[in-house]
């Protein structure tokens, strides 16, 4: 006969306010199989847990039901307490009478009745629970980091320093991400390359880091501790081992006009290129879309075209025949750090977003975005650091910086604030004033959001020392008028319309996740929000984890974020990974399915539905070894406990532990008591 303890929590007054906890405990005390029932103000507190432990020992309880908050909150807490008192943790379940009851109903009677029913349902379930032992599964103590920006590099370094191998996959030819494109970084104005390049080299030379640039993750199978990742190493057409990065091939390449992605389209590069001087690895890549030879091949021209880079290469490292390569990596944890892209104001927009017709849809010359300004200001940029405007190379005497282009603009599809633009706008104004002393920097803003350490002081310096003119009001329209750009605005503090003839306009466009993030998230079966930012497991309490065990997130791919936060988040994710790798074996919830081989007829429908391929056919042989029957058999290591097989099994020969038929049936049965 079951001896179940029911513990009803007041949760301060979160539950007590609308649910009569005493009545719940009292009613449950009389329910068949319940040997102990009491209510207490804070079940999850130490005294609360002590109550449970003492009851388990004193009353020799065979099961515990804690009627309190959501299992997602404290199931682990109470199961640990139960096991400390000698009860198998899986005999302890929670009844959600807070999020699903007290918080969402006002009528006290209705809430109390519902709480009683919910608790009773879980009591009936626990009667049919079976004691289970956690499954121990091996952990492949290797990590995969997707994205080679500062967040990815930091995570990879921390994990590698923790003594574990890391595979760092980066889709561009070099790691460094958007940080490499910056000239100087706020709030200290130290040069971006100077603080980033050492980290890139450290990652490149770290014995534990396997760097795979010009590569993308194509498929991810398996589960925490045992992921099998297929990475597509795109053909570089250059043999990385032979190449010594001398750059002769770059000089020999006839095609000089391809717009450089690194210079945000302002500069140009050759078809065979290295994105930027300090690129890591310093191995060039042939951009087959713009290389004469490959364009000819694509058109089916038999004759060999160009090939000058191969001629120029003394080491013979150029290999036109190289093909994409699919590499499989076994890893135990994955950190997603794919970073961000800037919203473009053009006409063509992804679903749900709108362009900025009033700012010219990006077709007005000298109206550029933040990254393009960074490239103009950067010494390695197309203008070697001289602030010259793209159209005619003149040094602009008046530059207007427009805040919130796309951000905080629900009508354009992005209601959120992109967090870092106020800071880099102040920085841009300072950089401009440092380089063009008599120039005029005008910033149209709504609010200056500079909440980091030393941040507000930084923006005040831009105003007080560098003479940045902050005008409060959104710009209504930009249009080219002769040689200048007319900026039509309104100064809401001075109560007057403002029209400025700007030589150049810098738009602080919104931060968005990288293109293709949704496909990657679906490959990892991780959820994402309507913009494509990865959903964290819990906004406050589990910010670097995702709802898929073993997959962590860091940097701007989760939400707009500056460098200090991205680095901190990367180290946090690395800490999570190291925690995961610190145990010999992973303990896994024993929620796996098992086949009753006497009743299974081997129709193998379960094999067809299993998303993890956990079901194999198994032959039953008689003593003489000839096959009597084939049945299905489930590998407990691979099964993730979704239960689809049990639902499609006609003869109900499969039982998923923790959600067995008996347990489900008892929960439904309990509702028959519903008054």
């Amino acid at each position, binding site marked *: 006969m079951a001896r179940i303890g029911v513990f009803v929590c007041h949760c301060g007054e979160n539950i007590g306010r609308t649910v009569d906890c005493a009545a719940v405990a009292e009613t449950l005390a009389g329910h068949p199989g319940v040997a102990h029932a009491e209510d207490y103000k804070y079940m999850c507190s130490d005294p609360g847990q002590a109550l449970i432990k003492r009851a388990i020992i004193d009353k020799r309880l065979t099961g515990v039901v804690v009627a309190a908050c959501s299992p997602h909150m404290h199931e682990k807490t109470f199961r640990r307490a139960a096991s400390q008192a000698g009860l198998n943790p899986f005999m302890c379940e929670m009844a959600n009478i807070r*999020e699903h009851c007290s918080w969402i109903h006002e009528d006290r*009677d209705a809430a109390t009745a519902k709480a009683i*029913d919910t608790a009773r349902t879980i009591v009936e379930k626990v009667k049919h629970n079976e004691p289970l032992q956690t499954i121990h599964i091996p952990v492949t103590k290797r990590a995969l980091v997707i994205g080679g920006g500062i967040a990815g590099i930091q995570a990879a370094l921390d994990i590698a320093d923790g003594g574990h191998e890391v595979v760092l996959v980066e889709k561009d030819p070099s790691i460094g991400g958007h940080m490499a494109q910056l000239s100087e970084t706020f709030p200290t104005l130290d040069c971006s390359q100077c603080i980033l390049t050492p980290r890139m080299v450290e990652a490149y030379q770290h014995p534990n880091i396997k760097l795979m640039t010009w590569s993308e993750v194509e498929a991810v199978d398996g589960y925490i501790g045992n992921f099998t990742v297929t990475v597509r190493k795109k053909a570089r057409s250059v043999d990385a081992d032979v190449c010594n990065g001398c750059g002769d091939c770059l000089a020999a390449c006839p095609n000089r006009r391809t717009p450089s992605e690194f210079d945000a389209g302002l500069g140009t590069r050759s078809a065979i290129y290295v994105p930027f001087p300090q690129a890591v690895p310093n191995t060039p890549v042939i951009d087959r879309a713009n290389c004469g030879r490959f364009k000819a091949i694509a058109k089916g021209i038999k004759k060999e075209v160009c090939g000058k880079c191969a001629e120029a290469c003394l080491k013979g490292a150029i290999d036109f025949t190289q093909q994409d390569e699919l590499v499989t990596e076994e890893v135990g944890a994955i950190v997603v750090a794919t970073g961000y892209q800037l919203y473009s104001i053009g006409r063509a927009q992804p679903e749900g977003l709108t362009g900025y017709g009033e700012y010219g849809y990006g077709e007005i010359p000298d109206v550029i975005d933040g990254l393009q300004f960074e490239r103009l200001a950067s010494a390695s940029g197309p203008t070697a650091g001289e602030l010259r405007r793209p159209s005619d190379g003149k040094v602009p005497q008046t530059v207007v910086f427009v805040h919130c282009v796309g951000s905080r603009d629900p009508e354009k599809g992005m209601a959120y604030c992109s967090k870092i633009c106020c800071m880099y706008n102040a920085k841009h104004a300072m950089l401009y004033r440092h380089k063009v002393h008599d120039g005029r920097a005008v910033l149209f803003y709504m609010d200056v959001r500079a909440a980091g350490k030393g941040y507000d002081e930084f923006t005040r310096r831009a105003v007080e020392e560098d003479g940045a003119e902050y005008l409060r009001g959104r710009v209504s329209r930009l249009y080219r008028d002769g040689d200048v750009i007319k900026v039509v605005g309104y100064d809401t503090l001075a109560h007057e319309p403002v029209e400025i003839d700007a030589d150049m306009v810098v738009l602080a466009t919104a931060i968005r996740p990288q293109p293709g993030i949704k496909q990657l998230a679906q490959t990892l079966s991780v959820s994402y929000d309507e913009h494509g930012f990865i959903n964290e497991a819990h906004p406050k309490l589990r910010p670097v984890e995702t709802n898929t065990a073993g997959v962590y997130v860091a940097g701007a791919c989760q939400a707009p974020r500056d460098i200090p936060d991205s680095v901190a988040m990367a180290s946090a994710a690395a800490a999570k990974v190291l925690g995961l790798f610190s145990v010999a074996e992973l303990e896994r919830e024993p929620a796996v399915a098992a086949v009753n081989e006497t009743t299974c007829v081997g129709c193998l429908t379960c094999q067809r539905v299993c998303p993890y391929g956990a079901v194999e056919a198994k032959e039953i042989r008689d003593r003489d070894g000839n096959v009597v029957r084939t049945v299905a058999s489930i590998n407990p290591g691979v099964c993730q406990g979704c*239960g689809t097989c049990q639902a499609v099994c006609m003869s109900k020969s499969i039982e998923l532990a923790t*959600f067995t038929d008996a347990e489900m049936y008892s929960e439904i049965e309990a*509702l028959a008591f*519903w008054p």
Partner: protein
Amino acid sequence: MSGDGHADEFEPRITAFVCNWCTYTGADLAGTSRLHMASNVRIIRVPCTGRIDPLFIVKAFERGADGVIVSGCHPADCHYTAGNYHARRRFALFRELAAFVGIDPGRMTFSWVSASEGAKWRDVVNDTVARVRALGPFDEYRRLVDLPDASGESYATIEGLLGRTAP
């Protein structure tokens, strides 16, 4: 029982089978956001909508439910990648057969509610309760078992069961 219904009004009993990763968490979010809703729904948690067997729904009706909600992750968001796709096929067929044998489809709600759609969960709950309240109690189901009538006669006539006078 629920806030806005007046005392004598029929309060439907709704059983909800929800998947642990999306809708259950969405319902948690509705809780943390204090989104008030009807209290007629009793939630039973399953790992995935793929785990929900039509027998669960039939048994829920047999045990007195007036309406059933089945809810889980949106397609492509399933934590187990494909559980909701199998569930979608299974319930497409079950729903048509149930309607064919005379169970009003209005008594069953199928929905996708993600972990961030607390408000949608409240709407699913409130709409289902309102719809089933309009349909009234599912007495026909409860009367299918030939309970001995007052005189102790063990086999009630079929007409009695169906609440019709004998032809």
